[in-house]
């Protein structure tokens, strides 16, 4: 089976090609076709995983590009880590396809929608199977393209267009870092293949400082894709896309690609204390930073988006503190419960046609399955004992303790408390209250099944922690699962429950007026509500300064150069009045610039004593 692994990404690609080329004719069956093809991919994935238990590593490549004397390969690389990612991607993608059958319902452009989903799934599957950084990078960009198309799916909405554009440009900043990083790696090691890079790291082939630099550059790519501070602002805006897309791309797969990149290149990071430290600090900061913003957002999906940013911060924090298994395990459980939360939220939005939690005010309580599913997800993410989130978070805390990062451990614990506060605030405001009594529009079965499956996984997947660690440890010796001392488990549980109780008293019992603190701490509220003014900061600095440079260049060309040229222009006019009437005077400018340029060059040449 494993030798057919290259087929896995091709089924979604086929789905994309068929639907984009003949989508109009296949409109009614488009969803079923796409789901079927993704299902086949999923079955293949299961087969490959079964084989991976005995093979542990498999690589098949062919020469793709020859530069000078260097060959760059393309192909398929399988090991426990990307086997895991294959599973998550194909599984969540399949569920999202099924869910979308109901969610996109009678949408006129649903063939296009499923085509884009296919493209995205193809790119994501190709990404996790890449044996080298260049192939990885190409799929990475393709993933970005898929995400861009899906965020901007509702073309007629101005905000969706803006969000898609923002996501595209913001992640591209990270991508530039990744590109520079991979080229530096190539320069240092003469290869882009993961295995050869790791060998080079082992044999100290890097110039001093280069390991740290390249690791940080790769991490910049991960920061962009995984919505880490300071490149996180695109992720909440990306919620303009259809909700199943948010579940697939902005919860379970694409945003996890950044975390996967750090995990896949882990030996490189392990070789540099500094790089690990930066990963951990950025992760911790993002975790608590996004959690505080999540406390005051009023849009159902935006709260989930900030929660995603915060949880991704957790994963980075774990990886930065040497908790390889903890980070990947949290990625897995998070994929389940966050996809669950988004899909449940999608049901709420579809049924109630609103997504401001103040307007919903408890109306969601009529949707039984959605309510229980959302509760399971909320409990899991809050780290409620024995649910999946509690296991993966404990693994992260244990890794931090083991690494001696007490400060970061404190931040992580505080974030855990905040997480249960904002998540239960969300839960209580959507599903508890005295909103309208009318039974809302019903939710189709195809949307209920994925919610039920994911809810089950969100509850039980935590128990597989040990097996999970063994699975990853088959290939990498740094894959160790850390175990927490009892006091830490106790503390974590206390914080999680404390947050729930806290939220209960504010939002259900109304013991504290939730509006009151907005006036008493008005400045804090304003800062949080405006997400620390990060967007405004970018608007006022980077965007304006780029614009200023462009204006500067434009006006330099137009006016400054022209003023200098005025003199020459006058002379030329005197010489040939007839010829000059034909033009508006600017061609003289061109000549002046060219000759002036030459004169400056020659002048420098003379000043430098005849040499450059």
């Amino acid at each position, binding site marked *: 089976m494993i030798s057919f692994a290259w087929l896995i990404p091709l089924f979604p690609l086929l789905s994309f090609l068929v639907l984009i080329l003949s989508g109009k004719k296949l409109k009614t069956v488009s969803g079923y076709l796409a789901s079927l093809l993704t299902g086949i991919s999923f079955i293949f994935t299961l087969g490959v995983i079964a084989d991976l238990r005995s093979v542990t590593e498999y690589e098949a490549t062919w020469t793709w590009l020859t530069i*000078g004397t260097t060959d760059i390969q393309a192909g398929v690389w399988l090991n426990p880590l990307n086997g895991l990612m294959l599973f998550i991607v194909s599984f969540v993608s399949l569920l999202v396809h099924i869910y979308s059958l109901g969610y996109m319902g009678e949408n006129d452009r649903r063939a296009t929608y499923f085509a884009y989903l296919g493209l995205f799934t193809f790119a994501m599957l190709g990404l996790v199977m890449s044996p080298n950084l260049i192939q990885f990078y190409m799929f990475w*960009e393709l993933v970005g393209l898929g995400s861009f198309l899906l965020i901007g799916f509702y073309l007629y909405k101005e905000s969706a267009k803006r969000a898609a554009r923002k996501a595209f440009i913001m992640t591209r900043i990270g991508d*530039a870092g990744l590109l520079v990083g991979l080229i530096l790696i190539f320069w240092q090691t003469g290869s882009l293949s993961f295995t050869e890079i790791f060998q080079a790291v082992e044999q100290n082939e890097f110039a001093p400082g280069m390991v740290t630099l390249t690791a940080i550059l790769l991490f910049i790519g991960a920061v962009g894709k995984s919505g880490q501070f300071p490149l996180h602002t695109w992720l909440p805006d990306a919620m303009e896309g259809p909700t199943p897309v948010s579940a697939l791309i902005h919860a379970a797969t694409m945003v996890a690609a950044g975390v996967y990149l750090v995990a896949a290149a882990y030996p490189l990071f392990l070789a540099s204390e500094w790089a690990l430290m930066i990963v951990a600090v950025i992760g911790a900061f993002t975790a608590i930073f996004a959690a505080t913003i999540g406390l005051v957002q009023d849009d159902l999906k935006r709260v989930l988006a900030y929660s995603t940013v915060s949880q991704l911060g957790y994963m980075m924090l774990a990886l930065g503190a040497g908790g390889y298994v903890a980070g990947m395990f949290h990625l897995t459980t998070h994929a389940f419960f966050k996809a669950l939360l988004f899909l449940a939220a999608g049901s709420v939005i579809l049924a109630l046609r609103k997504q401001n939690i103040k307007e919903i005010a408890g109306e969601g309580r009529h949707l039984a399955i959605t309510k229980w599913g959302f509760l399971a997800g909320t409990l899991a993410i809050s780290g409620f004992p024995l649910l999946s989130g509690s296991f993966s978070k404990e693994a992260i805390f244990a890794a931090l303790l083991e690494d001696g990062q007490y400060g970061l451990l404190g931040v992580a614990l505080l974030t855990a408390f905040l997480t249960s506060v904002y998540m239960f605030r969300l839960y209580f405001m959507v599903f508890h209250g005295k909103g309208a009594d009318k039974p809302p529009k019903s939710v189709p079965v195809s949307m209920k099944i994925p919610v039920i499956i994911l809810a089950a996984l969100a509850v039980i997947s935590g128990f597989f922690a040990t097996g999970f660690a063994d699975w990853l440890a088959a290939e990498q010796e740094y894959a160790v699962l850390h175990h927490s001392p009892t006091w830490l488990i106790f503390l974590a549980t206390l914080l999680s429950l404390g947050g729930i109780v806290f939220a209960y008293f504010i939002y259900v019992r109304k013991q504290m007026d939730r509006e009151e603190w907005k006036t008493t701490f008005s400045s804090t509220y304003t800062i949080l509500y405006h997400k620390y003014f990060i967007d405004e900061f970018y608007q006022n600095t980077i965007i304006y300064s780029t614009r200023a440079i462009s204006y500067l260049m434009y006006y330099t060309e137009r006016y400054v150069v022209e003023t200098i040229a005025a003199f020459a222009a006058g002379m030329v006019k005197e010489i040939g009045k007839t010829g000059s009437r034909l033009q508006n005077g*600017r061609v003289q400018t061109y000549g002046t610039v060219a000759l002036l340029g030459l004169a400056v060059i020659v002048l420098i040449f003379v000043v430098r004593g005849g040499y450059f």
Partner: protein
Amino acid sequence: MDLETLLSFKWSIMAPEFTILITGVIVSLQDLFYGNKRLSSWLSILGVLLAIAFLSTQYQHESVSILYDTYIFDEVTFFFKIILLTGTLLILLMTSPSWDEETERVRGDFHYLLLAALLGGMIVVSSGDVITLYAGLELLSISSYIMVGIRKYNRNANEGAMKYIITGSLASAVTLFGLSYIYGLTGTTNLFDISREMSAIDTQLEPLAILGFVITFVGLTFKISTVPFHMWTPDVYQGASTPVAAFLSVVSKAAGFILIARMLIIAFTAEPGLEQGTVYEYGVGLIAVLAALTMIVGNTVALRQRNMKRLFAYSSIAHAGYLLIPLAALTSFSLETIWFYLLAYMLMNIGAFAVLHVLIQNHANEDMSIFSGLYHRSPVLTVMMTIFLASLAGIPGTAGFIGKFNIFLGALSADPARYVLAGIMVATTVISYVYYFNILVQMYSRPAEKHANLQVPAITWVTVGFCTLGTVLFGIFPNLPLQFFNW
């Protein structure tokens, strides 16, 4: 030169040039006596195809030099001629003659001018001597001046042609001035002899050698539209009809690049050079600075353009800046890098110009708004345009990405490595996303205007389809052309 020597040359190696020359003559006679533009168009296409066929028989032919080293054939000339011929063919296929006639009220015919310009470019590529090289360059330039001004009732065209000819003459003068220094120092016009003389030059004359090199180089920047001879580009593109602008931005520029590359590599990198290095090593700092300035100016000013031809003019300036990097960072695969980039650039830029041509002809307008709602009017054309733009912006999966990637690797693996240039390239590439992206936004998210039916001549689809295919194919399998190049 007696008849016997004349006949002893291996004339067959010039078959592609003769084909273009004869076709040009036939087309001009045809135009004079019959004036059938459709026939001109087909004859030109046929001629170029025939020239390509002759050229392809020379694949893996050994190097030949005839007419006392003034005309040389080697693998470099072979590969660059492919770009010139294919580019011209695609431009010929981009336009439908009857269509242009109706809209432009053109009296003369641009086909034989195009062929003459192509011939000039081919001579430039094959020259081993400064004199023939200059003759080829002028043939290319003068034909281009007329092509720009051929729409004589169009005010922009008149203005553009006038500006082009003035700036061009200035550039020619500067080039000749630089060449005169080189001739004065070496006493020869043959590139190989220049190389030999340069390597044994008197130390006291070094500054003069470098000065000659610098002035010649600055003069030649006109053809490739880089700083400081770049300012004509937007006005001339705006004035020229779209196929002519495409020719200037691809074929003419490719000829300019191979000319510069050949002069640099043959004449100025000879070892042992001056006191500490070759002339090239002393002048390379200048090329690096010009490359940086060109990338910055091209990409930032493009941000402010609404007129599509002006936008693509600045974009073409920016691409010329990228292409200077392999020259500022010479490695063993610099030529290969330049060739691949020019190939990719030919495909994506002609493709984009072909789509632009269709829209300009349909709207009689060159504002960015002609792209609005294109997706709803012609999804296939939109998808193809998206591929061209993605490739121009250097998005992976397209030939443009591989081209940029090669340049980037070359800049870092050169000795000394050009970090700053590589950094500027990355930064300006990110800036370029913004303006290419604006076009995408227009195509996909703006509502379509009232012109519901888009008229696309069947022949244009050939160009657009071919360019799409090439852009994607060479983006996914870049080794196909690269292996072909390393025969």
